[in-house]
């Protein structure tokens, strides 16, 4: 933050620069005692308290957060309290709701006659022609089952040779996922799911998405990206992208043959899946940095396509956030760090697979630990005002130094004010 901004911030809060020792110590509470969190809190000399005590900073589970904000709890946060989730984060992080919100967002733009919602005809692998959004076609075609079953069948018939992926809406880490290449397999599944002993289980909904069967391969293996995105406000939207993401590789060569359809080591990139494979290496954990991916792509495929890919990923993130910004409970006490799962296809087009509201903070390797430690450290310095004490009255404009490895993706407030000064780290691309 520049000098003026600092002065302004100080006068806003009616504070003067207090020497470090006199500052009130931050009381934190956490539901998760992961070492990358605890060591960051310790380094800041924060004081751990229980959930019923006077906390300033709560690293909560999504459940705790929902409870705190529920009407029944009657809890009211004061100005010096912040928490790491938005109460209805599931608008973004549930697989079915994410798609629903994106579909609605595109329709709204279309109705407004916004050029972003432009559509065009594209030719699929199989030769058939379909209409797609030109700029907002970044999630694979998806339906919710059982609700949209008929719509799915209609789509399925258009290209019966394609593969689909079934995912339970409320699960994570690759559990319950399977691939489908025949309608009969889906029918069989729906019969089996309705077991007479557990009729309530049939209530569980699934999403079925077009399987990206042409992923970009490196060394013959499929991978996806895990990118971290920090949101400090949805209205106006303020979001930051962490530079240190990583690629998660499968341990087994990619193979589209039908016999490998059930081999999850070929198709699912989740570490939680891959680590059970015989070829899992726990020194590198199948993870390569996004910076090295970029180096490789620039070296082997050139600069223009690489830049385009990375710009398209930022675009995708910004619009996925815009798609939910109107429905999010934009509470001033909240911030959230999302784990974006993105697959790049062999045409270097990125596809959004899902968004996690509680990305894993478990460290699988030494480098993973360093990365996640930095993630938390940088995140804390972005969400906290310059004096380090949570305060919702702060203008949420971190200085370039405070951003660390975060790049500004979008700050609608700044765009509005057209005040790019003090934000040398802001990404060049403008999102309107």
């Amino acid at each position, binding site marked *: 933050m520049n000098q003026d901004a600092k002065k302004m911030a100080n006068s806003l809060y009616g504070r003067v620069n207090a020497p470090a020792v006199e500052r009130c110590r931050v009381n934190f509470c956490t539901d998760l005692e992961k070492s990358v969190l605890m060591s960051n809190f310790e380094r800041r000399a924060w004081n751990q308290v229980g959930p019923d005590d006077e906390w300033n900073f709560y690293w909560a589970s999504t459940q705790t957060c929902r409870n705190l904000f529920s009407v029944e709890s009657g809890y009211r946060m004061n100005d010096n309290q912040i928490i790491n989730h938005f109460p209805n984060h599931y608008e973004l992080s549930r697989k079915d709701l994410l798609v629903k919100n994106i579909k609605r967002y595109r329709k709204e733009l279309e109705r407004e006659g916004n050029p972003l919602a432009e559509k065009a005809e594209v030719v699929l692998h199989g030769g058939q022609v379909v209409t797609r959004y030109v700029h907002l076609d970044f999630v694979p075609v998806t339906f919710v089952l059982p609700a949209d079953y008929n719509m799915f069948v209609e789509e399925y018939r258009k290209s019966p040779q394609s593969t689909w992926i079934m995912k339970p809406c409320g699960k994570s880490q690759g559990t319950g996922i399977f691939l489908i290449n025949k309608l009969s397999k889906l029918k069989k599944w729906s019969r089996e799911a309705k077991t007479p002993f557990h009729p309530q289980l049939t209530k569980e909904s699934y999403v079925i998405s077009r399987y990206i069967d042409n992923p970009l391969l490196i060394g013959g293996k499929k991978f996806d990206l895990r990118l971290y995105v920090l949101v400090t406000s949805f209205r106006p939207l303020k979001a930051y992208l962490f530079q240190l993401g990583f690629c998660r590789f499968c341990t087994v060569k990619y193979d589209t043959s039908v016999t490998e359809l059930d081999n999850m080591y070929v198709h699912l990139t989740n570490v939680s899946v891959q680590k059970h494979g015989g070829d899992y290496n726990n020194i590198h954990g199948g993870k390569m*940095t996004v910076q090295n991916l970029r180096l490789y792509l620039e*070296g082997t495929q050139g600069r223009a396509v690489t830049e385009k890919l990375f710009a398209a990923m930022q675009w995708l993130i910004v619009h996925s956030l815009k798609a939910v910004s109107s429905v999010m409970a934009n509470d001033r006490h909240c911030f959230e760090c999302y784990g974006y799962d993105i697959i790049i296809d062999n045409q270097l087009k990125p596809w959004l697979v899902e968004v996690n509201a509680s990305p894993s903070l478990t460290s699988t390797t030494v480098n993973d630990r360093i990365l996640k430690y930095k993630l938390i450290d940088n995140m804390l310095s972005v969400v906290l005002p310059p004096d380090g004490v949570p305060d919702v009255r702060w203008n949420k404009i971190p200085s370039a130094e405070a951003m660390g490895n975060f790049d500004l993706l979008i700050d609608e407030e700044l765009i509005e004010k057209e005040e790019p000064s003090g934000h040398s780290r802001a990404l060049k691309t403008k999102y309107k």
Partner: protein
Amino acid sequence: MEGRHEDDKKHTASKLAEEIKALAVYKSLYSDVQKLASSSIVRKDDFRQTLHQAMKDQGLETKFRNTIYHLVKTHSNKNKDPISLLTKASGQWEKRIHKSLNSMCTDLETALAKTRPQSEQEELLEKWNELSTYTLDLSKYRPVYAPKDFLEVLITLSGYVPYTREDEPKWEFAHLPLQVKTLDQLRKVFPEWANGEPLLGVNPNMPSSVPGFASLEAERISLGERVAILGYAPVVQEYLKKGSPQCLRAKLWSQVLGSDIQASHLEYFAQLKKDVLEIDLMIDKLIFKDVQLTASNDDQYFVFEDLLYQVMLCFSRDSEVMKKLKDSIGNPPTVTIKGKQTSADSVTVFPPSGIIPFHGFSMYATPFCYLYDDPAQLYYTFRSFYIRYWHRLHYISTHSQGIVSLCLLYERLLEANEPLLWIHFRNININPIRVVFKWLMRAFSGHLPPDQLLLLWDAILGYDCLEILPLLALAILSFRKENIFQVNTIQNVDAVLADLSTISVIPLLQLALMKS
């Protein structure tokens, strides 16, 4: 005087002509000229002039110039090592390596070379693109030697020199009667760096001094694109001095090394593969083991594991490597191939490349995975790099770019420019070469992150020398010296130097060269 000069020129020209005739590219060059000569652009009445002009216009002249450039660059050093003691030492070292290979064979009850059974050939062929799934029991195989074994040999070298003084520690390379440059002399080798000219790799947002460019990087890309189109190797070399943008590196490196792929290259590469399939060399296991111990466990390289197996296996079969390096790499043994009928080809040089890998040898090839995904293209650039530079890092010689001179250079630079560190090392009784030797021997591969490493290797190509390696070692030590002063065991010094992931190579080197 004039006449003599002309004679010399003629002599050199005819010698070069002879050598070009012996090259693999000669045939295609010759037929290109023939085609041109018989075309209508070349006139009979002014044959010489019009042919020359046509060659220029068609890019053949550049091809010829590059051929000569590459020929001169790879000319092997015909004279034997002037210090006979080093020759003796390297001979003994070579014997030790051979002995250790042989005893490993005896222990494991296998042969250095044997025909590969049909079934195994088929399996290998089938898994050629995913050799990581080719199952081998390698538990009993050990690398023949590691950098620290080689260092022990080098350290005893000074003992071979008769005039070691009693009052000085024995480990100093300074006892060897070799000439190395001082920092001031190095400044003259790297004038662009020493003068503080703008270089790539300092700061991604560095502005350009040329109007019309948003940044230095944009300026370098635009210039580099033109250089690449021109394709004239000496110009490419000059360009690389200030660093290449990653998007042009693959092209520029292959141009400066003459490793652009031609049809004959692909055939030859296929032949190497065939040789791997047919003959089982004990070295194959060592290659598998080495990739497994290094790249497979490295988060920067594991995705390229399968590519590396292919490249390293083919390299071991490449007799052209040995031909080009015959005066620098000693005398590889000739062994009988078990299971083959006695005939002219039932014996083989072991291995045909003449190169026995050490622990970490694959790291000479790994960084190229960030430039080429085609195995053949990767192979030829790596091979050229090896023939020009890397072999000097693991063979004993008195060459000014050889590992012995580089160690000595490091030692001298440290003593002259970081005297307090030098004294500190003495006080804690650590030979300062020990803490940097593995960096030097692997040209920092596996130690620096790939983007930094590629910038460093740009400079090796640009200035056509390896002296940048000891200079970087010195610069890193200077940079971390406050931490080194705090510790007094080799383990702790190693710990201070273990993580180079935050090192910015170019600014550090430039700082070292600019300081006065």
